[in-house]
């Protein structure tokens, strides 16, 4: 459970400074940016996500590496299941996926 999932920020919400829409291999979910308050990402940035919260900003290269690591570890499916599971009743989620 300590593996982190890489994703790219595709949309920020002016009315919700703590949230961003993140794309993880085509699946889009809203994640919480509260742990990156000191260094908020902008659109296009890559982040590592853990249990629905972006926990660090990373480079695109490292994001692709991390996805490959998850695949190598046999965790990619579980990671995608986790991302798909974010946001139980979130209307944006159903739209985006």
């Amino acid at each position: 459970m300590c593996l982190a999932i890489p994703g790219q920020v595709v949309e920020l919400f002016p009315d919700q400074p703590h949230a961003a829409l993140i794309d993880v291999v085509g699946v889009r979910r809203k994640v919480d940016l509260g742990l990156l308050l000191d260094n908020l990402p902008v659109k296009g940035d890559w982040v590592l996500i853990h249990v629905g919260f972006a926990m660090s900003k990373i480079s695109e290269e490292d994001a692709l590496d991390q996805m490959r690591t998850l695949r190598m570890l046999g965790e990619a499916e579980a990671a995608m299941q986790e991302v798909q599971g974010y946001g139980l009743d979130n209307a944006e989620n159903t739209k985006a996926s």
Partner: protein
Amino acid sequence: MKFVDEFRDPEVITRTSEEIRRLADPKRHYRIMEVCGGHTHAIYRFGLKDLLPSNIELIHGPGCPVCVLPMGRIDDGLSIAKQPNVIFAAFGDMMRVPGTQGSPLEHKARGMDVRIVYSPSDALKLAQTNPDKHVMFFAIGFETTAPSTALTLLRAGTQGIHNFSVFCNHVTIIPAIRAILDSPDMRIDAFIGPGHVSTVIGCRPYEWIAKNENKPVAVSGFEPLDILQSIVMVLRQLKADEAKIENQYKRVVPWEGNHAALRAMADVFELRPYFEWRGLGFISQSALRIRESYAEWDAEQRFHIPGVRVTDPKAAQCGEVLKGVLKPHQCKLFGKECTPEHPVGALMVSSEGSCAAYFNYEHRKMAMVTSIASVV
């Protein structure tokens, strides 16, 4: 033997493996502990043991949150959910962890309202969409996960969501390492430090391990090459008779950690005087509890908790395996009564538990070799 060409950069892997062989003194036996369960999983999955000389022994550490949780805490959490109108919400990892009366999943089959969530904030949403119920989030995890629970509690406060509470089982990694170093039957030469915990706490909290205990630490990423490079780092230090903290996972781990995450944790949590760890016993100041100012969202203050202490099944030797005194297959129940399909102990439940990792990769491999040999 794992085929090296399965790796992303086989040549570098081979060179690093050779470097390890050059650095390891053949007259010496090395015991290197990987603290994090994610590393344990990677080590078995990639068969990294096969790339190391036989005098390097990897000891699997306590960094698997579900594995170190005493059974009594699962019973306590489930006892809250037995009360009317309570929804038990937890990560998928928790669902198959056995309590004395069965796992959360088995309780669900008996009618308990048990929900899997992938984020603590989704447990909070569950409370918003079920205003006539109380949602209790069973929180587990080290410093990687604790900040997310902390932020969720802060949001519950600012949004005034009152039908929500957290049963807090968050633990901290440093006191567990200290307990291992203090244990008389443990002799560890160096540590592979946890990667994602360190994105939050940074590298400074490990400095005492080098300064006071004279043991090298390399904070490591999760790719095979990351782990092998971390082994090179600690072997180089041991050879030079040095002890310092090195950050192999610089691409993700900042030396100073994540201040926003640490602030959120400090706002909501305080250290418990002591907490029981499966296999390691009571460790002082090793876990987090919710501060008085957030008592309204603290399941332990809001509900009556039986606080029962449950001893592990006698034959299961989870404690010895957790401390690295026994290898998983040396436990009497391993692969017989206790399998990933029917786990008796928590180490067999999580893919990060050393028993499940050993079973899924080593044991199945051995079973295949034996059956092929019997056919031939």
